[in-house]
């Protein structure tokens, strides 16, 4: 009971701390005391706990005190630490104290019976001892919690999914909480400040405070429609918390346009209709309905499509239409550019085609005819005027 008295005294001393120095001399206390702030603690089996101790000397000559711990249950390990290393003895100065720590390694087990350990300091003629009551509990009150106000979001594969998470530190200490997200493969996740762009991996939280962070999830754009879970785990020292989030991805058509075999060039003759095969591909995740095709070409050109619309294109499939292009009969030889677009309810794709206009070979034949006529004239002259 003497130790308890000493604890009470220490408590009183803490309360009276502004006047502590003056009051200390006034009290007529003498002797050696082994003290702790909390002589009865609760620990969880399978963990290690440190209990702070103090060996206080009031008015005694300095001497060596042998330290020991009694009443340690079998399987437990109790170590006395001083200055960070195991110690076997201590020597407090007169009216001074030595800080010690009792480290308890409690093995995992189902035995939840309370135990009392006694720490002893034995010198020549003076002894101090401190009983520490250790009770065991399976569940300790949560030290960390994480919550999301909107845990389930919906969008297309192209959208960003932003979750606001609030992390609360319920432990008695200031913590640095680190977080990680477990998302399906190829999903990109990043944590940022609630109102900032800097990416984070951990955040310091004061005791009793909570902080908001933002989790940004970007699904791969090729993902199929579906429901995808994301698990967020927050860890700080020995405490951890987790929450489940979810993405609902709805499909979206995505059109691509090109020529056959990916060719984006074609040949045409001025004033003559030529047909260019156009391939429309749906590389999205939902079928595209009612795709209409249109073309922009230089002035005087005619562009029509056969057929003009594609009724339905399921994802991963492609449809072919023929673009019938008639360059104006005044267009020059060489390259012109035409844009061909496919539109399906807000989703569209366009491709620029380079069309090489060639001149009709009719004039080439006419030229050859002119030369032929000249040659005939020559032959006629030879036949008519040839002489000996």
């Amino acid at each position, binding site marked *: 009971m003497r130790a308890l008295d000493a604890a009470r005294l220490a408590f009183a001393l803490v309360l009276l701390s502004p006047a502590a120095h003056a009051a200390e001399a006034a009290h007529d206390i003498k002797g050696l005391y082994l003290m702790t702030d909390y002589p009865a603690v609760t620990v969880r089996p399978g963990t290690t706990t440190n209990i702070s101790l103090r060996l206080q000397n009031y008015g005694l000559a300095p001497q060596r005190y042998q330290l020991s711990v009694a009443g340690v249950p079998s399987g437990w390990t109790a170590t006395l630490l001083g200055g960070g290393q195991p110690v076997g003895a201590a020597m407090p100065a007169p009216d001074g104290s030595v800080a010690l720590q009792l480290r308890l390694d409690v093995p995992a087990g189902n035995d939840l019976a309370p135990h009392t350990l006694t720490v002893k300091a034995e010198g020549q003629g003076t002894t101090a001892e401190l009983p520490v009551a250790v009770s065991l509990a399976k569940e300790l009150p949560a030290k960390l919690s994480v919550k999301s106000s909107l845990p389930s979001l919906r969008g297309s594969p192209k959208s960003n999914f932003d979750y606001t998470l609030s992390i609360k530190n319920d432990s008695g200490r200031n913590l640095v909480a680190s977080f990680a997200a477990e998302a399906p493969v190829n999903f990109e996740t990043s944590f940022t400040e609630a109102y900032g762009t800097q990416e984070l991996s951990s955040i310091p939280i004061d005791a009793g405070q909570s902080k908001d962070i933002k989790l940004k999830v970007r699904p791969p754009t090729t993902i199929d429609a579906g429901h995808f879970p994301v698990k967020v785990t927050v860890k700080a020292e020995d405490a951890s918390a987790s929450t489940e989030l979810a993405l609902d991805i709805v499909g979206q058509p995505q059109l691509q346009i090109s020529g056959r075999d990916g060719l984006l060039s074609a040949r045409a003759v001025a004033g003559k209709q030529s047909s260019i095969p156009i391939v429309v591909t749906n590389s999205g995740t939902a079928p595209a309905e009612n795709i209409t095709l249109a073309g922009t070409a230089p002035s005087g*050109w005619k562009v029509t499509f056969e057929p003009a619309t594609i009724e339905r294109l399921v994802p991963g499939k492609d449809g072919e239409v023929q673009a019938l292009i008639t360059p104006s009969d005044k267009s020059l030889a060489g390259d012109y550019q035409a844009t061909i677009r496919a539109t399906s309810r807000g989703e569209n794709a366009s491709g620029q085609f380079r069309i090489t206009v060639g001149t009709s070979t009719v004039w080439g034949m006419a030229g050859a005819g002119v030369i032929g006529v000249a040659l005939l004239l020559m032959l006629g002259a030879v036949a008519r005027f040839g002489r*000996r």
Partner: protein
Amino acid sequence: MRREGSPFRGLSTVFVKELADHLSSIRMLMLELLIVFTALAALYGAISSLRQNTAEDPFLLLRLFTIDKAPLPSFVAILGFLIPLMAIGLGFDAINSEHNRRTLSRILAQPIYRDALLMGKFLAALATIGISLAALWLLVIGLGLIFLGVPPGGEEIARSMVFLVVAIFYAGVWLSLAMLLSIVFRSPATAALVSLGIWLFLAVLWPMLAPALAQAIAPADPRYALLGLNDPATAIWTQELLRLSPNDLFGEAMLAVLSPTTRTLGPVFLDQLRGAVMGSPLPFGESVMIAWPQTVGLIAGTIVLFAFGYVLFQRQEVRA
């Protein structure tokens, strides 16, 4: 009296003899030296300006033909000016000198028809010009290789081959004309003077006269002048009149073949250019198609002038 056997018997004899005469004559040597030195000067200008300008060009070899550096005109322009001189120099005394030396009746006493004589002389002169042009062409490619260090691509070689062929037919027009005049005029000096006169007129005066004539035929609409534009009708007339000159035909054909970005040789309306990809080279076949009408003009001109001269020669009295 009808002829017996092939009209071309003896053609090869005349051809070989004339070719040998041409190639060993002082006149030919002087003409060749004139052309080679002016062409070399033009080429030197082109090479030095190309070496300073290191812009990437897929047709570097062709630039050698077309690039000019003041005060010298480009290689092609110099050839366009000097090829007629060479052709006239080889053809102006083809027939009348035989008359004057009284050798014509002697030649025709051999088993050689007049057809073969005229054709042989024409082909020999054309072959002489062809040989010198081919040598010049090889010179350009060789100098390009030495000074630019870029091996010519297949299309460049093809385009410059077209240049060679068109240049030979261009020479053919002038050669036919010079031979025609040598048949018409008994004095070589007259024939030379007349053909040189025609050459100077078409090469120097005609480019100035044609726009004036076009203005007279189709006066420009003042509304176009107010907008600062050319009247398309006048422009078309100018071009059509200019095309009467073989020099212009040669220049246009060379522009189409040696500058692959040329898309047309006539006047261009703005709406024809809408949507056009500028600066992209035309395929070889399309360039040749653009140059084809001009080439046809040169080839047909050669044949028609030759046929005309042939008819006159056949009807001529040669024994006097």
